[in-house]
């Protein structure tokens, strides 16, 4: 299948760095607490300032065969343009390839209610890593049946930490403490980082 979308078929807009200065310098301290390697501040700042460019067809948020096809069409233009440099660095080339492959899935890939990739989730995923500079070792990239990007990694004790990027927030799960919840909006990123950094009582 080869799709070519003309400019008149698409809506193009910029999503600016939504979270300027909201989490800033505390990231480095938290990264130390988490023992998580962190992208250097300058790199993270560049990524944030650059913003994330999303190219999306006006109908792409609907859960239809057509929207799947349009998202597949994005592959022709390089999915990596949707993702901040910091997010790319966090997931690596293998993770980026997986993410690109998710764009190939059509509605119904896991039963009736399953959806193609949700572009707003990709946007939140991209912004999260640009803002936080978080870079866990061996970060796995997945997709939920709702079409949301999911990442997980193992903490120092080998227990799972997982984040699902919703269109308007982040759902988190920390296996060590059994804690799970959802953070919303710009303050949510820094709150979530603090949550991940909290020591768990034995």
């Amino acid at each position, binding site marked *: 299948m080869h799709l070519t979308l003309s400019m008149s078929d698409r809506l193009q807009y910029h999503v600016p760095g939504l979270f300027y200065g909201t989490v800033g310098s505390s990231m480095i301290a938290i990264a130390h607490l988490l023992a998580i390697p962190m992208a250097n501040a300058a790199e993270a700042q560049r990524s944030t300032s650059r913003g994330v460019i999303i190219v999306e067809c006006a109908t792409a948020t609907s859960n239809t065969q057509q929207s799947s096809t349009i998202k597949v069409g994005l592959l022709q233009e390089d999915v990596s343009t949707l993702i901040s440099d910091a997010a790319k660095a966090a997931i690596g080339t293998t993770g980026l390839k997986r993410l690109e*492959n998710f764009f190939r899935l059509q509605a119904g890939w896991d039963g009736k209610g399953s959806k193609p990739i949700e572009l707003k989730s990709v946007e939140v995923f991209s912004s999260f890593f640009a803002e936080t500079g978080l870079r866990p070792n061996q970060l796995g990239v997945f997709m939920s049946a709702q079409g949301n990007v999911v990442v997980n990694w193992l903490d120092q004790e080998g227990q799972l930490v997982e984040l699902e990027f919703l269109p308007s927030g982040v759902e988190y799960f920390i296996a060590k403490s*059994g804690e799970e919840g959802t953070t919303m909006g710009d303050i949510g990123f820094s709150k979530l980082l603090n949550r991940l950094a909290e020591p768990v009582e034995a």
Partner: protein
Amino acid sequence: MAKGDSVDAIEEVVRAGMYPYWDADLQRATPSAFTAAEVSVSRLAILDFAQIVSIFKSDFNGRVHPDGESMKVRSTGRATVANIIQQAEEPMNDKNKSLPNVVLTVVEDKIENESGATDNPAHALICGWSRENPTQSRKISRGVANRLLDVFRWEPLPD
């Protein structure tokens, strides 16, 4: 047995390990494979394993863009219905002794003449329900989903 009827607790069901849920390089899966309010499984009491896998392949591989050769169904997991339901009946963790806010059922959901789906007489659903209001559908919490991930014994499919 009609659609929506409970599947017997001793029955074993199979879940497909699809590409978005399984990272072969890291050898790691995601609990997201079980976090929907309804999760598709197939009953080994109705079709044998090879028939079920054939349906998985037809349904999933057929929804992948032609360039997506690497994304085929690569693994399956199996669990008994009793074991599945039990995962929501254990306390949250050592510190929090309360039960998860979700209750699980496994019900018959035969697929027949549905547009875009392969007929599957063995199809069933793991359903999440609110513990406070068991008539209200609810997403399966990630903690319970993580347990389900462990309970299904995942095995790679031969090429």
